[in-house]
C-alpha cells in the first residue's frame, strides 16, 4: 500500500494555504491529522497531486469556551478535546463522543475539522455537530463564510465546502444539559453500526427541548428534527421514546455492509436512540 507521488506544501498561514489551493484547484487537498486521507491515498483511492499540510497554522488550533459560544479550531485533535477541562464542563458530550472515535493513536492525530469536513458518513462528529446546531467557518479566496452543520452535508464525501475553501473552526452555543452519544460498533477502531447523539433539556418531569442526530445510517449524518420534536412537551416516557424512534426511522436510510443487513441497522438505530435518550434524560 504505497500512495502515488505528490508535492508537499506546508504553509504557515491561511492565506498561503488558500493561495496554494487556488493555484492547484482540484489537484490540491488539505491534510489535517490525515488518518482518513492517508489510508485512502495508500489504497490509491484518493489521488492528491498537491498535499497541503495545515499543521503549522497555529490559528487553526485551540478551544475557546466563551460566555455564550464555544469555538474550536479545526486542527484541534480529539485527544485535545478529551483533555480540555473547560470544554468538558461546558459541553461534556464532546468528550463522550471523542472517546468513542477510533483508538488512542488515531485520536492524537485526528482533528475535529478533519472529522467534520471529510464527509465520511461513518465519522462521529458530524452528527454531534448537527445535534449541537454547530456553525462551520469556511475560508476561501472570497473571504470567510459560515454554514450550519445541519446544511453542510449533501452525500458521502460531498459537502457544501468548495474545493478552494478550508474549514477553519466550528462554533456552537452552550448545549442543553442532558447529553449522550450512544454508539454500537464491533470493536474499538470500528465505525458505528449505528450511533445516536442526543441533547435534552428538562423542567421537572417535562422535556423542554431536545435535539437528535444519527451516525452512519445514511450517506450523510441524519439530523432527526421530527424525532426530537416528538419528545418536547412529554415526560420522555416509553411512549414518547417510541414515537421519537418511529420518527427517526423515517429519516434514516441505512445500507448493508459487513456490520449487518438493513433491518438490523434499523433495529440498532432504535436501540441506540432509546439508550441515548434515556441516558441524556437522566443527566438533564
Amino acid at each position, binding site marked *: 500500500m504505497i500512495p502515488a507521488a505528490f508535492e508537499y506544501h506546508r504553509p504557515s498561514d491561511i492565506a498561503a494555504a488558500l493561495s496554494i489551493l487556488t493555484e492547484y484547484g482540484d489537484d490540491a487537498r488539505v491534510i489535517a491529522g490525515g488518518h482518513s486521507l492517508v489510508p485512502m491515498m495508500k489504497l490509491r483511492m484518493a489521488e492528491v497531486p498537491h498535499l497541503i499540510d495545515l499543521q503549522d497554522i497555529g490559528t487553526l488550533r485551540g478551544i475557546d469556551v466563551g460566555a455564550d459560544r464555544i469555538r474550536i479550531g479545526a486542527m484541534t485533535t480529539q485527544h485535545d478535546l478529551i483533555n480540555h477541562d473547560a470544554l468538558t464542563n461546558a459541553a461534556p458530550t464532546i468528550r463522550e463522543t471523542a472517546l468513542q472515535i477510533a*483508538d488512542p493513536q488515531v485520536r492524537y492525530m485526528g482533528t475535529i475539522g478533519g472529522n467534520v469536513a471529510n464527509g465520511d458518513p461513518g465519522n462521529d462528529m458530524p452528527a454531534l455537530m448537527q445535534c449541537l446546531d454547530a456553525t462551520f467557518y469556511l475560508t476561501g479566496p472570497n473571504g470567510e463564510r459560515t454554514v450550519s452543520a445541519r446544511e453542510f452535508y449533501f452525500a458521502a464525501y460531498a459537502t457544501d465546502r468548495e474545493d478552494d475553501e478550508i474549514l477553519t473552526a466550528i462554533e456552537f452555543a452552550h448545549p442543553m444539559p442532558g447529553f449522550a452519544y450512544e454508539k454500537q460498533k464491533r*470493536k474499538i477502531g470500528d465505525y458505528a453500526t449505528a450511533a445516536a447523539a442526543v441533547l435534552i433539556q428538562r423542567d421537572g418531569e417535562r422535556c423542554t427541548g431536545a435535539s437528535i442526530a444519527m451516525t452512519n445510517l445514511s450517506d450523510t449524518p441524519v439530523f432527526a428534527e421530527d424525532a426530537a420534536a416528538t419528545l418536547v412537551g412529554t415526560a420522555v416516557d416509553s411512549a414518547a421514546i417510541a414515537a421519537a424512534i418511529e420518527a427517526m426511522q423515517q429519516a434514516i436510510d441505512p445500507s448493508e455492509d459487513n456490520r449487518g443487513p438493513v433491518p438490523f441497522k434499523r433495529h440498532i438505530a432504535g436501540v441506540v436512540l432509546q439508550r441515548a435518550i434515556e441516558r441524556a434524560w437522566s443527566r438533564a
Partner: protein
Amino acid sequence: MNEKAPLDRDERISNLKGMGCSRKRVEDVRFTQGRGNYVDDVKLPGMLFGDFVRSPYAHARIKSIDTEAAKAIPGVIAVLTAADLAPLNLHWMPTLAGDKQMVLADGKVLFQGQEVAFVVAEDRYAAADGIEAVVVDYEELPVITDPFKALADDAVVLREDLEAGADGAHGPRRHHNHIFLWEAGDKTTTEQAIDSADVVAEEMVYYHRTHPCPLETCGSVASMDKITGKLTLWGTFQAPHVVRTVASLLSGIEEHNIRVISPDIGGGFGNKVGVYPGYVCSIVASIVTGKPVKWVEDRMENLMATAFARDYWMKGRISATKEGKITGLECHVTADHGAFDACADPTKFPAGFFHICTGSYDIPTAYVGVDGVYTNKAPGGVAYRCSFRVTEAAYFIERMIEVLAIELDMDAAELRRINFIRQDQFPYQSALGWEYDSGDYHTAWDKAMAAVGYDDLRKEQAEMVEAFKRGESRKLLGIGLTHFTEIVGAGPVKNCDILGMGMFDSCEIRIHPTGSAIARLGTISQGQGHATTFAQILATEIGIQADSITVEEGDTDTAPYGLGTYGSRSTPVAGAATAMAGRKIRAKAQMIAAYLLEVHDDDVEFDVDRFVVKGAPERFKTMKEIAYAAYNQAIPGVEPGLEAVSYYDPPNMTYPFGAYICVMEIDVDTGTHHVRQMYALDDCGTRINPMVIDGQVHGGLTEAYAIAMGQEIAYDEIGNCKTGTLMDFFIPTSFETPHYTTDHTVTPSPHHPIGAKGVGESPNVGGVPAFSNAVHDAFRAFGLRQSHMPHDQWRIWETANKLGMHA
C-alpha cells in the same frame, strides 16, 4: 576467604532452570528492545523489491497483459508474467496437497487477488507505481463461491488445466469441480447403527472460512550469488527444510547450494506453512536480475491470497439410546478448497486428521466422508493454530453433542460425562482408526464443573430465562461447554509425510569444553519460545543450566533436517528428539565420569547436574568437569568431544485434551455479548514451562474468541473478498478480549520420552466450540438448535429475530 558452602540438591535443581519451572524467556531481551530480526528487517546491498499485480476478478480469462508502460517507469527493473516463467517451467508449482497452482496467472484467473504479474523495482515505491501501470485485459467468467453450486451438473469448469475424468492426487474425481472424496470408518455399520437407534440428531454444522492473520505478513528475500552458485532464501517459513527441498526440486538448483533461513517470525498460526507464489517469484527475480529481491505482502494481500483456514460444511448424524449412550456418528463434509488444492496436510490425509471427530467419546461405530471442491476463492486450507482439520472436527462433535442433548432433553454436561472414554480404556482404539495414548477425562471434567460452579450457573440461567419471558430483562446467559481431544505431534513416518518427507524431527547438541552448549533443531519458533523451553528440556536431561544452552533454529545450513513447527508438533516430536539427543550425551558423559572417578560405568549415576558414585555422593564429577574432560583427556575407548544428534520418529501421535467452559451474557436487543468467565483446563501431559503454557492458552483462546464471535473471510456473490483489512477482519483489541482463568491436570503421554503432549493449539481447538456453544446455549430455552458462526452482532440479532424474540 571462606570456601563457598556446597549447594544443596534443591538449589542445584533450581539453578538448572529445567523442566517444570516458569523460566523467563531468553528471546525477550531482544524483542523488547526492538532488536528482533524479521524478514522485512533483512537488508542486503543492491536489494530490489518485488510486488504483485493481482486480479480484481474472481474468475476471468486474461486476454492480454501489457507491461511496456510499467517497464518505462523510473526504477522499475523487470516485470515477470507467466510467459516469462514458462520456459523455466515455473509458471505453475506443485502444492502440498498433490495439486498444482499457478505462480503467475496462466491464461485465466481463479480468485480475486490472484497473482498476475510480478514487478521488480529498485524500491517498494517504484514497484507500486509499476503495478499501477501494468495493463491487463480481462474477460469476466461466471463465478462460483458456493461449493454446493460448484458440483451442479451445469457449473462452469474452473480448472481447465485438469483433464476431464482423470483421477486426482487422492483418487477419482466425480465432477469437473470435484477434487477428492476421502473416507474413514465403516459406512454400512454406522448407517445401520444410526437408523436403528432410539434417538437421532441431525444437523448441518458450518465452520466458516477464516484466516490465521499473524501480525507479520508473509515475505521472502532471495539472493542468488551467481559466482558461488548459491541461493540464500530468507523467509517467513514454518518449515524451512521443506522449503529448501521444494525450492531445489522446482529450480533444479542442487539442495546443498540452497540455504534457507527463517529469521524471527512474527506469528505463524499456520499462515506460514504454505509455499506461495511470492517466494517463487522472488527467487526467479533474483536469478534473472542477479540481485537480492525482497517480497513482502501487505495486509490486504495476506487476507485475500495466502492461506485461508476452515470452510467446512459438516452434515452430521449422531445417534444414542434413550438414556443417552451414543451409538453412532456419521459426518459428510463438503470442503471448500478454493481455486487450487493447496491444503497443508500430510500427504495421505487430504482431510487432515478430521477423523478425530469422535472426540472425547466412546462411540462404537462411525463414518466420515469428505468431498473436496474447487471454487473461485483463494487457495490455502491451512491449519490455523490447529493440527490438520482438528479444529473443524472438535467443533463438529462438540456441536453434535449439544444438539443430541437437545434431542434427548438432557443436560449437555451429563451427556458428555456418560459418554467419555474412561481412564481404564486407554490406550483407546477409536472407531475411525486412532489409538488415543492417555487420558483422564472424568477427572478433568469434574474439576472444571466444580471450578465454575456449574449447578449454580444453571439456576441463574433459568432465572434469567424466566425474567426474559416476563419481559423484565433482555439479557440471557449462555454456558458454553466443551471437552475436546486433540491429536497432535505429526507424526509417525510410516503414515505421515509432507511431499514425501517423513514427519520426524531432529535435534543436534554440541557441548562446549567449558560446559555450555548449543542445540539446533529442525523446528522454528514463531513466538512459542523454543529458545527458552527446549533449553529447559535439555537442562533437565543433561544437567547443564538452561542459561548456558543456546537453542538455534531456522538455518538449514546449520540445523538438522526437520519438518518444522505447526500442528503442535514441536514439543511432541522435536522435544522428544531433544530429550533423546540429550540422553545420548548423558550416556557418553557417564562413561567419561566413570573413567574420571575410576569406577565401572555402572557404578555411577546421574544426579541433577553431575554423575555420582553410587552410595558415595561425595564422589562426583559435574557435567562441567565431564565436558572439559571430553575435550582434554585421552579416554580409552571413548572418542573425544561431546556431541549427539537424534532424529525422532514418533511411535504415535499425542492426544492432549481439555475442559473449557465459557459463561457469556447476551444482550438480545443489540446482539452484543459479554464473556463473564472463560475457564480453560488443559491437560498437555508433562508441563515444561507453566508460564509459557499459560501464554499459549491465552493467545489461542483469543484467536478462538475472534473466530467464534466475528472473524471471517467473506465473499460476495461475484467473489469479491469483503474482509480485506483489519477494519473488517475481526481481531479483538485488549478492550474486547475476555479475561481467562487457566487450570490443568497432568496425564503424561506414555510413549513420549518426557511425557509431553503439546499445547499450542488446544485453546483454539477447544475455545471455538466453547464460545459458540455459549451462544447456542443462551438461546436453547427458546428453541435454537444450530446457527452458523461467526456469532457477530447481526447474526445473534438474526437468531433472536428468527426465534420471535423481537416483539
